């Protein structure tokens, strides 16, 4: 290449100082790694010299992205976006590092950054080209996403021919044309069932969406109207933010803007380290969580019909220099279900969680990422080694895999006296009521009820968790208005109430979950399914508190509710408050009533007047329940949060009713009963080392259900370290071995096996 050609080439490059974006990405990575400071910034000259100007630029950007979100969401028609706020906008550097983000589903701070980095890595500058006015789209999980229903719109920001950044907008769309209707379908077991996948595609030029894209995308999903308006929401927000950035550049000068975006990320990194040192303690903290995948009897391909358990052990190391490390060594293999995750979804999700605890401020950007390290074993459910994996409901386990991290952090907060920050964990954010068909307006339709955005919060060390309040993935949780859901879904509400006994018990209980009873009305060709944890609770309690209740399903088919309504006879309403003593069943006849723990199902036909119970989970508890104040138990009983028999068996309360029908807890009698219960504990408690000998014998005999053995075998295959530590803990002979091959279940896709390799 001659000098002239080189000059022409560099003139074409859109990066700073004639560089390519790839060169810029490489330089940022190298200098950040070498110096330990983002972009090598050992000082922050702009912030230090002009602190007010610096803060003013930050406030304008932060205010602007939040404003864009609030304004743009009014464009959407989907209640998921418009009611629940399932959208987010983030501003990035030219290299794809996040600078500032809006509120909302902020997990996408990382995922859209990953998509931008993917485009840079794959030389999009050359082909298809990156130009002012372009619009890109991505929802491919293995490029940078959580699940395909989170659709990204990404717009480059140019100033005088140079790329000065990107803006990304994401919305959770209602359907992506997967094997079954609903945004987070249960049916998919591979990528090819997961729905429409858009892999960082240029979909617009000159600020206009291309016709072929509009036609193809709308023909690929069930809910075309929502799809179109969601896309316009994202484009509108991105363009608002692009205008804002250009205004700031005009006001402050492009060099100041460039300096600012570097400094604000380094500032975020420093802020995070400072928070770690303020709130935590150097050391190692270990915890684990699980979730059930009961697929043996599901209508899925034969190789996927396996009952298994997803396993998430974590070791959090807080280093002396404030570095924050999370190691997932021991996680088990990915599976033929739609609950696999990608590295970017697990790391970004952890930042969502951190923004609600360790870094509860508006400085959420990639700075924290540069101050931390994640170890995500290859071939596991959170870092699959196979492009075939499905991800449509990655959240099934993401939400549970993070829950133990609350406990790790909370043990630190507790030890330092910051009791107000303690949180026993988060709920498994289910059930997901999903399905579709022809709705009450005779339109091809899909539904995904976001009532799950309001689950019980974990207990703290000071007070109870908040009832039906939030979801880990969207800090602005909201259950939505029933009237809006009834417009969006051909499902009438026959009840919406707190569900007793769903909160984990404790000195402070978790927040209670709730339940809604829905009757199908006005639909045609309608199917629905259940999606949540059933056989397992996906968290522990903390420091003596219990985990939240697990899940179950209730559905009724072929009911006589039409006749009963016509005859003005009583019908089931309200909650299924005591599933041991069901009342719904006494108020109707039905061809089939299902009540069981199979809380994950594939499409089931629902006719009009069939019933579906949507039960949203509670949060875990804190501290010994025998220390709960009697007045608090009394309130739980009178507010319908607790069934009286458990006030006695769990809390040791002596309960009676007064003449007005209010529950009264007798403090003195309770104290006496609690003393007795403590004595019973000492009687039934076994020294741990004695119990371990019994458990060891069970392990030697391989006595456990197949799903339990399958989980361990999947972890042992991926991690010799985990296998060795397991054997060491239980003092097992070296020849003791457990492999997936010996379980009599299909082992499709099981490639990595470190145990086999070492013989």
């Amino acid at each position: 290449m001659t000098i002239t050609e080189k000059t022409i080439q560099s003139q074409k490059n859109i990066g700073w100082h004639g560089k390519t974006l790839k060169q810029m990405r490489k330089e940022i990575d190298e200098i950040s790694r070498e110096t330990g400071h983002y972009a090598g910034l050992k000082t922050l000259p702009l912030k230090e010299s002009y602190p007010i100007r610096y803060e003013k630029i930050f406030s304008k950007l932060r205010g602007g992205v939040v404003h864009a979100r609030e304004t743009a969401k009014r464009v959407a028609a989907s209640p998921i976006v418009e009611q629940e706020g399932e959208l987010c906008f983030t501003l990035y550097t030219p290299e794809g590092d996040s600078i500032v983000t809006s509120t909302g589903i902020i997990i996408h701070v990382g995922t859209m950054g990953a998509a931008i980095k993917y485009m840079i890595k794959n030389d999009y500058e050359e082909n298809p080209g990156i130009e002012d006015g372009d619009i890109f789209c991505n929802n491919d999980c293995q490029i940078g996403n959580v699940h395909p229903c989170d659709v990204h719109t990404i717009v480059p920001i140019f100033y005088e021919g140079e790329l000065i950044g990107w803006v990304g907008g994401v919305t959770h769309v209602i359907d992506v044309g997967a094997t079954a209707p609903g945004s987070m379908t249960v049916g998919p077991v591979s990528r090819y069932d997961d729905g429409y996948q858009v892999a960082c595609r240029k979909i617009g030029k000159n600020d206009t969406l291309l016709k072929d894209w509009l036609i193809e995308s709308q023909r690929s999903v069930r809910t075309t109207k929502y799809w179109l308006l969601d896309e316009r929401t994202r484009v509108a927000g991105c363009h608002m933010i692009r205008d804002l950035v250009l205004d700031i550049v005009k006001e402050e000068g492009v060099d100041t803007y460039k300096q600012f975006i570097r400094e604000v990320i380094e500032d975020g990194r420093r802020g995070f380290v400072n928070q770690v040192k303020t709130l935590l303690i150097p050391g190692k903290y270990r915890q684990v969580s699980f979730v059930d995948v009961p697929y043996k009897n599901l209508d899925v391909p034969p190789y996927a019909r396996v009952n298994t358990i997803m396993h998430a052990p974590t070791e959090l190391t807080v280093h002396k220099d404030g570095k924050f490390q999370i190691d997932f060594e021991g996680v088990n293999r990915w599976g033929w279900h739609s609950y696999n995750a990608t590295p970017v979804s697990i790391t970004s999700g952890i930042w969502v969680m951190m923004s609600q605890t360790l870094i509860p401020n508006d400085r959420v950007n990639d700075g924290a990422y540069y101050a931390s390290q994640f170890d995500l074993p290859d071939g596991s459910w959170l870092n699959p080694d196979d492009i075939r994996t499905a991800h449509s409901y990655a959240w099934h386990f993401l939400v549970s895999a993070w829950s133990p991290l609350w406990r790790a952090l909370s043990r630190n907060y507790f030890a330092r006296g910051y009791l107000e920050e303690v949180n026993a964990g988060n709920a498994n954010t289910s059930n997901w009521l999903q399905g579709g068909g022809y709705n009450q307006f005779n339109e091809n339709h899909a539904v995904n009820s976001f009532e799950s955005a309001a689950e019980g919060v974990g207990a703290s060390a000071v007070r109870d968790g908040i009832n039906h309040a939030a979801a880990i993935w969207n800090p602005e949780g909201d259950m939505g208005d029933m009237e809006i859901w009834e417009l969006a879904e051909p499902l009438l509400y026959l009840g919406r109430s707190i569900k007793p006994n769903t909160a984990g018990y404790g000195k402070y209980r978790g927040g209670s979950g709730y339940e809604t009873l829905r009757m199908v009305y006005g639909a045609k060709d309608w199917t629905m399914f259940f999606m949540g944890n059933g056989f397992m609770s996906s968290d522990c309690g903390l420091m003596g508190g219990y985990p939240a209740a697990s899940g179950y399903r209730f559905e009724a088919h072929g009911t006589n509710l039409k006749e009963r309504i016509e005859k003005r006879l009583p019908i089931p309403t309200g909650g299924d408050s005591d599933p041991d003593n069901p009342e719904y069943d006494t108020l109707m006849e039905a061809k089939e009533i299902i009540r069981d723990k199979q809380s994950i199902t594939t499409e089931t036909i629902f006719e009009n007047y069939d019933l579906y119970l949507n039960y949203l989970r509670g949060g875990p508890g804190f501290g010994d329940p025998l220390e709960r104040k009697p007045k608090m138990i009394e309130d739980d009983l009178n507010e319908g949060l607790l069934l009286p028999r458990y006030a006695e068996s769990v809390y040791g309360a002596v309960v009676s009713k007064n003449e007005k029908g209010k529950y009264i807890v007798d403090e003195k009698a309770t104290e006496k009963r609690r003393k007795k219960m403590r004595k019973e504990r000492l009687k039934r408690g076994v020294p741990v080392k004695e119990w371990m000998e019994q458990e060891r014998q069970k392990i030697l005999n391989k006595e456990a259900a197949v799903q339990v053995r399958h989980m361990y075998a999947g972890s042992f295959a991926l991690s010799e370290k985990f296998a060795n530590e397991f054997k060491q803990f239980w003092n097992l002979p070296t020849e003791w071995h457990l492999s997936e091959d010996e379980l009599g279940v299909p082992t499709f896709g099981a490639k990595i096996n470190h145990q086999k390799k070492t013989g």
Partner: protein
Amino acid sequence: MAQYDRKTIEELIDGTIDFYKLKEMLSNFKDTDRFDKYISILQERVPWDDPILLPAGLHLYIVLKPDGKRVVKCDCGHEFCEASDNWKLHALIHVRDTEEKMVELYPKLLAPDPEWQVIREYYCPNCASQLEVEAVTPWYPILKDFEPDIDAFYNEWLKRPIPQVK
């Protein structure tokens, strides 16, 4: 920088703190002297004199013994083991691994299925306080969940020597 008086921290420990005060604590920058006030209140409340190095959970403390050993101790006075060991291995355990034991806690359909998950309750062998509850699969090794580097915490973060036995 925020600062709270001793009474406020006592109310925090006792769970009697006013909601708006608690909200303020959550929203503010943290008070740097919290640890000292907190430890001093806890030390005053326990019926023994071993200096508390670090709280290790509700009712549990890592304390310094006269012989220099660091021990995990319950506020009732029971000493479990050295801090380098896992206190749970020296507790009493009750495992809910049958439906009968599960339904004492939850209605049947709201309880975990013991074929998939068991609930392990760890009690203090002396005062019978329930100190931890684990919901895990059968066979799961007992985790050592709290392993602080006390030396680094005092020497490098708090920048002061570790408390000594008086």
